[in-house]
């Protein structure tokens, strides 16, 4: 427990310590300009907004697919061979390095004739999020005792009604956790969007144009030879951490009421 808490705190402290001198309001309110990477004026608003677009798009797609899939695995196909195979495949996909998703997405995009774009990035991140979400939700749903679902079936409920009203509600904390896990991985992932989303200094206005992102902003800034720009990379990293932390806290608060109905 101490080690876990200690490592979280030390990461925060190191990033904050090295990035603090570069943290400023203009960083959050301005987009990058040509000279930004040489140490001139500007901010990373383009990357913050870009990451928000990318991750919210990808998460919306991933949740839409994951929730029905996890419910299906549990309510309809719980111990079938197909379900076992699906779970194993998802576990493998979970551990696939994200660069593979990037390259895969890029190949598909080339085939479809789409360039590096918001749409491409969303697709690659959705692929990255899917196995995490499905398996996390699935594991929590599997722990729901049969007795609870039985009491729904005993009233004459169908599998669909039981999945929606009982399994999904009871698994709500786990569903939230699954979404958060996936969002955390996606928002910090650079490799999968390197080719698929590209990078730009402006805020994207179209699904088909390139888009900036926080992890790539960190990556590019760290790659410059200028100490003040590297400092900004740490500051950007700190912003990324703060976003992930606040998402985690916000989701907990938002689902608190619904979670109170869960049977212990």
């Amino acid at each position: 427990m101490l080690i876990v808490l200690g490592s979280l705190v030390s990461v925060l402290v190191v990033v904050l310590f090295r990035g603090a001198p570069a943290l400023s309001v203009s960083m959050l309110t301005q987009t990058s300009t040509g000279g930004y990477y040489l140490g001139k004026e500007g901010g990373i608003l383009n990357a913050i907004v870009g990451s928000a677009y990318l991750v919210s798009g990808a998460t919306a797609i991933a949740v839409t697919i994951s929730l029905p899939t996890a419910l299906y695995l549990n309510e309809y196909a719980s111990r079938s061979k197909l379900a076992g195979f699906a779970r194993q495949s998802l576990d493998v996909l979970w551990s696939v390095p994200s660069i593979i998703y990037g390259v895969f997405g890029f190949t598909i995009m080339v085939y479809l004739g789409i360039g590096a774009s918001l749409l491409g990035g969303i697709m690659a991140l959705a692929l990255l999020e899917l196995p995490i979400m499905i398996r996390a939700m699935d594991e929590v749903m599997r722990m729901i005792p049969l007795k609870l679902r039985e009491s729904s079936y005993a009233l004459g409920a169908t599998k669909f009604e039981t999945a929606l009203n009982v399994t999904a509600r009871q698994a709500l904390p786990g569903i939230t956790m699954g979404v958060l896990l996936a969002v955390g991985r996606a928002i910090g992932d650079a490799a999968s969007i390197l080719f698929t989303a590209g990078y730009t200094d402006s805020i994207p206005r179209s699904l088909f144009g390139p888009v900036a992102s926080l992890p790539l902003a960190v990556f590019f800034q760290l790659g410059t030879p200028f100490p003040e720009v590297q400092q900004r990379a740490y500051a950007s990293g700190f912003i990324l951490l703060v976003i992930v932390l606040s998402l985690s806290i916000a989701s907990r608060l938002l689902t608190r009421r619904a979670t109170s109905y869960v049977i212990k």
Partner: protein
Amino acid sequence: MKVERLPKTHISVEKLNVFYEGHHVLKDITLEIPEKQITVIIGPSGCGKTTLLKCLDRLIDLVDGVEVTGRVLFDGVDVLDKQVDVLNIRKRMGLIAQTPNPLPMSIYDNVAYGPRIHGTNNRRELDQIVERCLQVASIWNEVRNRLDEPASKLSAGQQQRLCLARALAVRPEVLLCDEPTSALDPISAGHIERQLFALKQDYTIVFVTHTLRQARRLADYVVFLYLGQLVEHGPTETMFTQPNDPRTKAYIEGAFG
């Protein structure tokens, strides 16, 4: 002159056999369950009481690796027939489980859940059903001002009465009770018992227990299961005072349990 009418058979079980992963769990059970009476199934743990109950409303379907043969006629319809409308059968047979298992929703929604899935969506109608069922389960006065609270906040005894109300809300004809008082304190258990006793006017009740005194208090008919076999069944007084089978006699005298 008082004429005793023989109660009508509501459910009749014919040559029911259940195999579970190679084990013969229920062996050739043949049994008639009378309408609007309390039939109590007794027997030591693991003798197949719960399995028998689960065959009546086909909840046995949820268990993997089970094979069921024989017939269970419910108002003349074979429940075990694959063509039968299982959802309708389950709607007509309410279940009170061993441990209280409220659904992950509010007190109100727990009771309204059943009627809702069967198509009642009118709020006023639902309000009436919820109030009536909670009253019959004699928990209305305790929860009337906190219907929106999570059901999980109730005590175990209250939860079990809520489960009774939930079962009644879909207007079943039969109540299947699987040791519904075994996880409760004596006072809550007494509540449930008295309510079930009052409910037999309107419902056919099948009650599983391993408490002999409870069986004697509640039962009109007693069925004794032992190692998956139906040893003996009959009216309560006969079963407790003049059992035919030596195994019944031994069990009732407490020689094993």
